[in-house]
């Protein structure tokens, strides 16, 4: 609980940021000391990214204070933040691929000769000097196109140093790096720390955090939780603080149901670079939770099962029958429904009426002699809307005009109309209000009770733990753990989802 005595170079206090009715960041606080590497940890959706974006000038805070080297700042743009000495190194930097390395480093402030022509010689020499200081060898005159992600990050760091940034934010920089590249990055980070700069380091990998950082701040649900000296804390304690919530009472899960026959069986499913060796089953009356970090490959697995994406190896069976790959129509015919991750882009056609959205999948079975009428669509949609308590002014208004929770109910109704054997729900309650969230949970439980097999992808740990009969954990495209309902605890799932077996 000790915070170093040196005055912080960057301090955030009770920073709040909302988007409409969604509170992305409730009260973010952080004190970054000069000459320190400060880890920022939290679950997906804890508000880390929003906090970084406020620091970087992408978002403007609603309230709270941000002070840089003692004076209050309020960045209106990323350029403001840059000028003030803040540099953000993203996981995958966006460079100008057709320009040279040196041109990228000096973008917007190229050294010029008399007459206004760019002085390549000076620019290349200065870039070389920067790289030398960082202990790396990249040719300043080569094209940026084709640089490895690690080298691209180094280029960004070189740029930050040439701007004399006092604060560097590294947002999950190691996610796409190999072991050697991570070591090189850490060497550079330590050198920058020793020069007296402050570094904020975001990572899900505890081994890295404990190797590199000296201080760690934990966030949860958009709020500041605690700050620790790294020597005073263990990974297990941090995990507890990241997830520490009372989850058991919130979920209307019926306990003790006996699952029936296997509905979905996935064998050794693989798609190069995305996931591999995925084997699992989902049975009747069973809710299987698919947990893991964002980007671990969970949605991709669902897309492959449903046939949106192709896969390279493996088999998907429904009720024992092999399912053709890459064909959503056959998947639907076999009894799969998919409530996708992105409601507005994938789940719904927002410019189409609610009624038509609800009947889009069953359009053929709804037709009589091949002909369909708005009447039959409307009646069918009305039944679905009544069952799920959809609140709509009119079923004929565009789906996009409804609230997020009602939109999600429409997507659910759309798939329930097909009477699926297996329902895959991807982030079923993301971005919807608490009341509707509970309704969705109750519905999922009811459906399972009635015999449906449900595969639920969720980044919200409480939801996974509260709703699932079994929990599967995906990490970097592989199934790394399976827990029964009784075994599944926040700590166990988080540990399996991050790379900390040895540390925990």
């Amino acid at each position: 609980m000790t915070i170093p005595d040196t005055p912080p170079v960057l301090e955030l206090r009770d920073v709040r940021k909302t988007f409409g009715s969604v509170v992305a960041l409730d009260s973010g606080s952080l004190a970054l000391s000069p000459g320190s590497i400060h880890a920022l940890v939290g679950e997906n959706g804890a508000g880390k990214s929003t906090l970084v974006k406020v620091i970087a000038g992408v978002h403007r805070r609603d309230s709270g204070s941000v002070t840089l080297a003692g004076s209050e700042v309020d960045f209106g743009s990323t350029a403001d933040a840059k000028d003030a000495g803040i540099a953000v190194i993203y996981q995958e930097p966006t460079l100008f691929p057709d320009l040279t390395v040196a041109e990228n480093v000096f973008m917007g402030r190229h050294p010029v000769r008399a007459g206004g022509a760019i002085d390549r010689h000076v620019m290349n020499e200065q870039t070389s000097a920067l790289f030398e200081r960082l202990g790396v060898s990249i040719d300043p005159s080569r094209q940026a196109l084709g640089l490895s992600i690690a080298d691209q990050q180094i280029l960004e760091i070189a740029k930050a140093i040439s701007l004399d940034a006092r604060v560097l934010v590294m947002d999950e920089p190691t996610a796409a790096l190999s072991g050697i590249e991570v070591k090189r990055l850490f060497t550079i980070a330590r050198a920058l720390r020793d020069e007296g700069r402050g570094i904020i380091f975001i990572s899900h990998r505890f081994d890295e955090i404990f190797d590199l950082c000296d201080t760690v701040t934990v966030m949860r649900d958009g709020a500041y939780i605690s700050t620790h000296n790294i020597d005073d804390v263990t990974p297990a304690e941090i995990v507890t603080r990241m997830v520490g919530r009372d989850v058991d009472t919130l979920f209307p899960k019926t306990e003790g149901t006996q699952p029936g026959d296997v509905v979905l069986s996935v064998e050794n499913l693989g798609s190069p670079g995305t996931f591999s060796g995925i084997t699992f089953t989902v049975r009747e009356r069973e809710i299987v939770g698919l947990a893991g970090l964002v980007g671990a490959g969970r949605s991709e697995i669902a897309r492959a099962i449903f046939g949106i994406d192709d896969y390279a190896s493996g088999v998907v069976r429904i009720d024992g029958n092999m399912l053709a790959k890459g064909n959503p129509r056959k998947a639907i015919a076999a009894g799969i429904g998919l409530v996708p991750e992105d409601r507005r882009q994938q789940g719904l056609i927002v410019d189409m009426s609610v009624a038509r959205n609800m009947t889009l999948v069953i359009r053929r079975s709804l037709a009589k002699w091949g002909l369909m009428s708005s009447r039959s669509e409307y009646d069918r949609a009305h039944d679905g809307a009544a069952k799920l308590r959809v609140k709509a002014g009119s079923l004929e208004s565009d789906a996009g005009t409804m609230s997020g929770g009602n939109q999600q109910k429409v997507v659910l109704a759309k798939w329930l109309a097909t009477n699926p054997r297996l329902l895959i729900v991807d982030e079923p309650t993301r971005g919807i209000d608490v009341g509707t969230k509970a309704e969705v949970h109750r519905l999922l439980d009811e459906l399972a009770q009635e015999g449906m097999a449900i595969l639920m992808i969720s980044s919200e740990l409480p939801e996974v733990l509260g709703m699932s009969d079994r929990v599967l954990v995906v990490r970097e495209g592989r199934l790394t753990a399976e827990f029964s309902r009784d075994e599944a605890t926040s700590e166990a799932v988080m540990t399996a989802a991050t790379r900390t077996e040895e540390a925990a």
Partner: protein
Amino acid sequence: MTRTLEATTTAPAAPSVGTRLRTLLFGRSAAIIALLVIVWIIASVSVDNFNTPNTLYFLILDVFPVLLIALPMTFVIITGEIDLSVASMVGLSSVTIGALFQAGVPVPAAVAAALVVGIVGGAVNGFLVTALGLPSLAVTIGSLALYRGIAVGILGTTAVTGFPDVFTDLVKERLFGRGTAIPTVLIVFIVLAIIAIVILHFTGTGRSTYAIGLNKEASAFSGINAGRLKFWFFVATGTVSALAGVFWTLRYDSARGDNAMGLELVVVAAVLVGGVSIFGGRGSLVGVIAGVLVIGALRSALRLADVSSDVINVATGLLLVVSVIVPSIITAIQRLVQRRRAAAAAS
């Protein structure tokens, strides 16, 4: 699902008959139908000889190729694609008939061959767009040049004429005898229009067509195979364009490579005037047919009033611009009202 929650749903039990009729047939094309009526009334009152059977007869024959091609073009544009090769296909079809007739092939066989050319030409467009994923704008600009090039290459600048009177008279025949307004060939259009309207507005295929144009990704997640549908729509534009080529050749008794030059722009313009969104997903066939007729009526009336052809072109262009702007303004207002209503319902 054991709960019965009928009462808690705020949506009304069924939409009113009037609402449904409007959604079904007119949608956003009510404005263009009103415009057609206005143009017609003004022309009838102020232009001598406009409201006569003979004028109407020639008006229909003049717009007939556009009417035909606008039907499949509506499907293509609603899916968010475009086919600019249609006029070149009219030319290629015409040349196919001409060249075969010159070589001694009987007219019915030559016509059949022209239709096959249309099917193949459409399939080539469809394949390039759907199987290779190329943008239809680029593909059909290419086939616009390609088909026209082949057509002109085969016959050069010469024309094949002298088709048997049986056939040339057939396309000019009046359904109800001398002096009446309706050409017999209009039956061909009416049959095709009914088929098109049923497919677009009363079948699952029609629903899919709109869905693809509004959101391709969500359509895929609903099990709609966009590629297959688009392929067949391109085949349809090719085939119907070839059919328009048959009409063109027989009506003017002239098979030429440069027949119907520039007609693709008239067709696209008419479809857009008819209220179809160039971005896909919106529009109705009733509107499109009205759109074609508005342009036809306007041009015919101005010609009868001895207005110079330059002014006629300016007027047509103005109509195009205005009618593309007006529907988007109407939509914007409708959306605003809808949002307000939804907001009121939510609170």
